[in-house]
Each structure stands twice: as structure tokens, then as C-alpha cells.
């Protein structure tokens, strides 16, 4: 197996601290170099925090894992410098087809809103994404990525943790002011600090096959309910890069995961689906059982949990890595402010507040999709089939078909960092919401709004601003004036932000709205800035 991709092997390097046998205190140590650990490391480093990323392995993600990345994570990855490469290598798709039994039930077009830098969604194998992040980290002096470093145990103190690490050179200890555990759904770190992980395991199994074929299927997402080639179950076909196709076969709970993985079982299934004469080769095959669960608190002492270690979702709707990136997005600036003494530790606790709120939204959405795809009773199956049959001729029923909902960011509408709106506002940019992108002109050249936000707090204002920055304690927010610093050439900034003369937004470093007003008032902005820093 494996015809298109050569797994890189990254060299182990003995660290000076292990060689010299001295215990060093690091501001941030990240456990795990999966997509979320890599992104968290890069995010921290870009914000100026020197950080160490440890991984027990020495390569990228092996086998069939994440495929789809949605717009908001792509915007975050764009800030880290990886998104353009991902888009160039990845596959963009817009049309999805839903089949029920032997025929096409209907098709849909994602019709993404135009004038955003990032597409609604791309498909790309997880190993490419990880490679691109690793390349970017290699260019980042503040991020120190160490392979073949396994966390063995952890001891927590009031203001730091002591980590025992095993490398090919033996065991040594290091200290961290903050530990970010990104060591996946089976997180060792979580077990070491006694973290809970509760939720639901779905009584179902899925065969996930990556297949290489040059077939001229269109670049679309095809989803079958109860097809003749795989009766009573669902099947998904999706295109990835390098002529690799992802095929998911629902197997049911009784399937034997070891038997089902054997090529002599898998190949006939795929032939039944594609037809006898479509040549293909297996690249990778695995059998998964999916779960929806999360930790109650994403912080235990000095340890913060991000990505699958904190929450696990079923892949319907492609939420796992997508939501994990938003954890990293949320955490980086908070760590920076607290480490610099510019915000109280309470700011770190808003990480759980905001991201557990988002995790619940993700868990709810992916549980709903799973309930539609795998009905739990004869009656709910009848309802499901009723929807699918009606969908063919009654367009109004189609939105009820749930074969996975596109992952979208969860606005932190209830966050304690928000300042409440006063007055009437149109559109979706309420406090706690991630900022919409829009095309602008910068220095006479076309540019994007989001690329101007994100290196710190920003005050975005429509009209005359009496100051070039607003300060609260050691934190300052740079003023960006629409019409002066950036040109709203297409009028879309004003349209998307309900911008009228005087309208002013306070935007967090993670490109989320903290507060907004109809006029620029330095004192009010400073108070909102203080609040957004957890004070």
C-alpha cells in the first residue's frame, strides 16, 4: 500500500539541556506535534513566546485522517503562513450529491459568499498540512520542535510543571510555566493529571479507505444512503490531492474490524461501488469507531488541553482538526498577555469558557449528523428514509438531509470578555464573533482585511479617529481607520460590519470582535480593552 506519499523522517537531535543535565524553565511546552500542537507552537512563537514542541514520534500523521479544512481554520492558518500552500496543493469542491438507494436524490452547490480570501472548504491529506506547518516552524527561531521526545510523567507546582521526558539518550526533566497538551484523543497527559473525558461512543464502525485512481469522477462530494452496492449502510466518496480518493463505508456495529481491513474484503466492496473496470490501488485502510466526548475543564493546574486531547468528535462535518485550530487561535494571545504580566491568570480560564462552549456546539452538530446517518431505532430510520424520499421531488425538504454539516466557527456570544452592544446593529458581527474578511486596497494594491488584523488588538474605525492607539495598562490597541489606513474599495467592509461614519470596533488578536460602538470614545474603548484582557 501507499503509492503516492513518502513519509518524511525527521532527525532526532539531542537538546543542549539534556546534554548538560540542567533543568531549564520554558514559558510554554507543547506535548504532541500533530496538527494542533504544531499550530499552537507556531502561533505562540509568532506572538513572541519561545516554546518547545515535543513529539514521541519522528514523522507526520500516518494513514487516513483529516481531509477537509473549513474557512475559519484556513484564515488562522493563513496568519501562520500555511494556507496559500494548502490551497495550492489541495482540492476545492463546491458540488455535493446525495444518493438514496439506486438513484440521485438531489445535488447542491455550496455557493460560498464571494470576496473572501479563503475558500469555504478545501480537501487535503493531513500529512501535507502537517508538513507545511513543520516547514514553517523550521523558519521560526522561537519555536523549538523536538522529535523522539516522549512525555513520561508530569508533576504540577503552583507556578510551573516539571516534565519527565524520554529520548533516545535517556530520561531528563524540564520545567514549563504552561504546558499545552496536544497529544490527541488518547492523551497521556490527560491521564497523568487525572483529567476526565466523558461522552458517547457510537455503536457503529466505519471502514475508511484511501484509494488511488485516475478515474474521471468529478471533484464533488458524493454521499450514498443505503446504496445497492452497500445495502442498509452509508458511503462517502471525496477527492483528495494526488488522485487519492477517500471512501468511507459504514459497516455497522457487528462488523469485525480486523477482518474488514483485509484487502480481500475491501477490494470487492470498492469494485462493487466503482464498477469492475475502474482501475485503482489501495493506499491505506483502517476501521474506526467514532466518539463524541470532551473534558469538563480544558485547564488542570498548569496544563491546558487543545485539539483532540480536549474534545473528540465524529468526522461528519469535518470538525476535529478544524475546531482544534480554533483552540490554538484562542490560546496564543492569552498566553502571551499573561506571560508578559499584562493580564491576570483569569484570562487563561476564559480559554475553557470560550472553547468548551464551541466544543459543545461541535459535539451537538456531529451527534446530530451521526443520528441521521446511523438512526438508532426502526422508527428514526423511517423518519430518515422519509426525508430522503421526499427530498428527491420536494426541494424544501432537502435542507433536512444531514450527511454532515460544514464546520463553521462558534461565535463566543456569551463570553465574559465581550462588552455588550448598545444601539441597533445589522449583520452578524456581534461581540464574540470571528471577523469577516473583505477585500480592501492597501497602499494602492489589492489586499484583505483579515491580513491587517491579528498581530495584536486593533481598533477598526470608520471615519476620523482622534488617536492612533488606545491603551489599557501595558496593552495597546492599534487604530486602523477605514478610508485612511485601508481603502474599502468595494464597500464590503462597511456592508459586513454595518459601518457608518463613526462606527468603531475593538478586535481581539484572534480576529474576534470584543466590542463595538457608533462613535470613537477613547475611555470607553480602553474599558472594553481591559475587559477583553480578563480584568
Amino acid at each position: 500500500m501507499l503509492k503516492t506519499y513518502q513519509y518524511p523522517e525527521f532527525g532526532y537531535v539531542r537538546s543542549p539541556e539534556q546534554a548538560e543535565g540542567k533543568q531549564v524553565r520554558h514559558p510554554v511546552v507543547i506535548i504532541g506535534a500533530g496538527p494542533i500542537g504544531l499550530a499552537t507552537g507556531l502561533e505562540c512563537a509568532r506572538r513572541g513566546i519561545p516554546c518547545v514542541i515535543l513529539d514521541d514520534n519522528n514523522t507526520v500523521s500516518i494513514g487516513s485522517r483529516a481531509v477537509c479544512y473549513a474557512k475559519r481554520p484556513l484564515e488562522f492558518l493563513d496568519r501562520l503562513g500555511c494556507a496559500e500552500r494548502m490551497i495550492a496543493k489541495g482540492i476545492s469542491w463546491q458540488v455535493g450529491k446525495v444518493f438514496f438507494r439506486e438513484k440521485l436524490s438531489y445535488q447542491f452547490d455550496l455557493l460560498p459568499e464571494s470576496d473572501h480570501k479563503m475558500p469555504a472548504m478545501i480537501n487535503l491529506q493531513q500529512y501535507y498540512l502537517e508538513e507545511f506547518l513543520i516547514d514553517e516552524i523550521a523558519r521560526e527561531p522561537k519555536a523549538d520542535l523536538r522529535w523522539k521526545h516522549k512525555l513520561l510523567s508530569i508533576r504540577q507546582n503552583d507556578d510551573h510543571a516539571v516534565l519527565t521526558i524520554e529520548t533516545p539518550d535517556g530520561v531528563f526533566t524540564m520545567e514549563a510555566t504552561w504546558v499545552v497538551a496536544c497529544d490527541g484523543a488518547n492523551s497521556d497527559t490527560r491521564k497523568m493529571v487525572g483529567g476526565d473525558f466523558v461522552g458517547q461512543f457510537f455503536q457503529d464502525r466505519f471502514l475508511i479507505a484511501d484509494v488511488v485512481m485516475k478515474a474521471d469522477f468529478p471533484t464533488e462530494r458524493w454521499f450514498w444512503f443505503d446504496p445497492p452496492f452497500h445495502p442498509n449502510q452509508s458511503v462517502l466518496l471525496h477527492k483528495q490531492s494526488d488522485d487519492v480518493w477517500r471512501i468511507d463505508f459504514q459497516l455497522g456495529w457487528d462488523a469485525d474490524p480486523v477482518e474488514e481491513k483485509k484487502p480481500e474484503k475491501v477490494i470487492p466492496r470498492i469494485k462493487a461501488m466503482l464498477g469492475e473496470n475502474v482501475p485503482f490501488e489501495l493506499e491505506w485502510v483502517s476501521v474506526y469507531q467514532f466518539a463524541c466526548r470532551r473534558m469538563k475543564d480544558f485547564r488542570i493546574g498548569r496544563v491546558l488541553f487543545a485539539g483532540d486531547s480536549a474534545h473528540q468528535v465524529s468526522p461528519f462535518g469535518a470538525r476535529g482538526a478544524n475546531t482544534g485550530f480554533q483552540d490554538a487561535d484562542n490560546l496564543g494571545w492569552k498566553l502571551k498577555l499573561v506571560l508578559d504580566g499584562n493580564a491576570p491568570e483569569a484570562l487563561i480560564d476564559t480559554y475553557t469558557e470560550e472553547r468548551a462552549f464551541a466544543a459543545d456546539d461541535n459535539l451537538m452538530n456531529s451527534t446530530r449528523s451521526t443520528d441521521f446517518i446511523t438512526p438508532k431505532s426502526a422508527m428514526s430510520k423511517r423518519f430518515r428514509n422519509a426525508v430522503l424520499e421526499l427530498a428527491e421531488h420536494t426541494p424544501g425538504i432537502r435542507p433536512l438531509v444531514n450527511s454532515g454539516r460544514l464546520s463553521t466557527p462558534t461565535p463566543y456570544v456569551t463570553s465574559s470578555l465581550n462588552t455588550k452592544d448598545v444601539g441597533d446593529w445589522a449583520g452578524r458581527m456581534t461581540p464574540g464573533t470571528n471577523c469577516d474578511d473583505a477585500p480592501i486596497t492597501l497602499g494602492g494594491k489589492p489586499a484583505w482585511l483579515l491580513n491587517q488584523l491579528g498581530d495584536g488588538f486593533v481598533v477598526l474605525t470608520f471615519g476620523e479617529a482622534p488617536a492612533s492607539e488606545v491603551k489599557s495598562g501595558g496593552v495597546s490597541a492599534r487604530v486602523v481607520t477605514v478610508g485612511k489606513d485601508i481603502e474599502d474599495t468595494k464597500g464590503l467592509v462597511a456592508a459586513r460590519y454595518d459601518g457608518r461614519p463613526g462606527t468603531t470596533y475593538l478586535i481581539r488578536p484572534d480576529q474576534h470582535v470584543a466590542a463595538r460602538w457608533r462613535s470613537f470614545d477613547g475611555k470607553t474603548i480602553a474599558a472594553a480593552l481591559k475587559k477583553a484582557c480578563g480584568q
Partner: protein
Amino acid sequence: MKLNTTANIPDRDGFYQDLIDSQRDMTDEEASLMNCKLVILLANHIGDREALTEAIRLAARTARAAART
């Protein structure tokens, strides 16, 4: 209450006969599937999220109580 629980169907006996007649030649399985379709179509027609929740709660509560007796 958003759900209209007062009498609202003109030609009530005709409606009821229509419903029963439509399933006269069906197996229980077919009729169950049809009932599901009917629920979905009518729910879409009503479209009022609160009224739908009230109807679901009312039907569920009374179904449980009836099944216990």
C-alpha cells in the same frame, strides 16, 4: 402557546376519512413510512419552530401516558 389546539380543520370527517383511506391498502410498514412523510411535510408547512416543539412535547407526553395505561 403557539400551537393552535382549538378546532381548526374544516370538513373534519372528510379529512379523517382521507387520512384513513389513504392507508387502507398499505402494510403497517408502508403506513408508518407514510406517517413519517406526513409529519415532515406538515412540519415544513407549519415552519413555526415554537409551535413544532409544543406539538412534539404534547404528543410525546400523551403518548407515554397512554402507553402506560
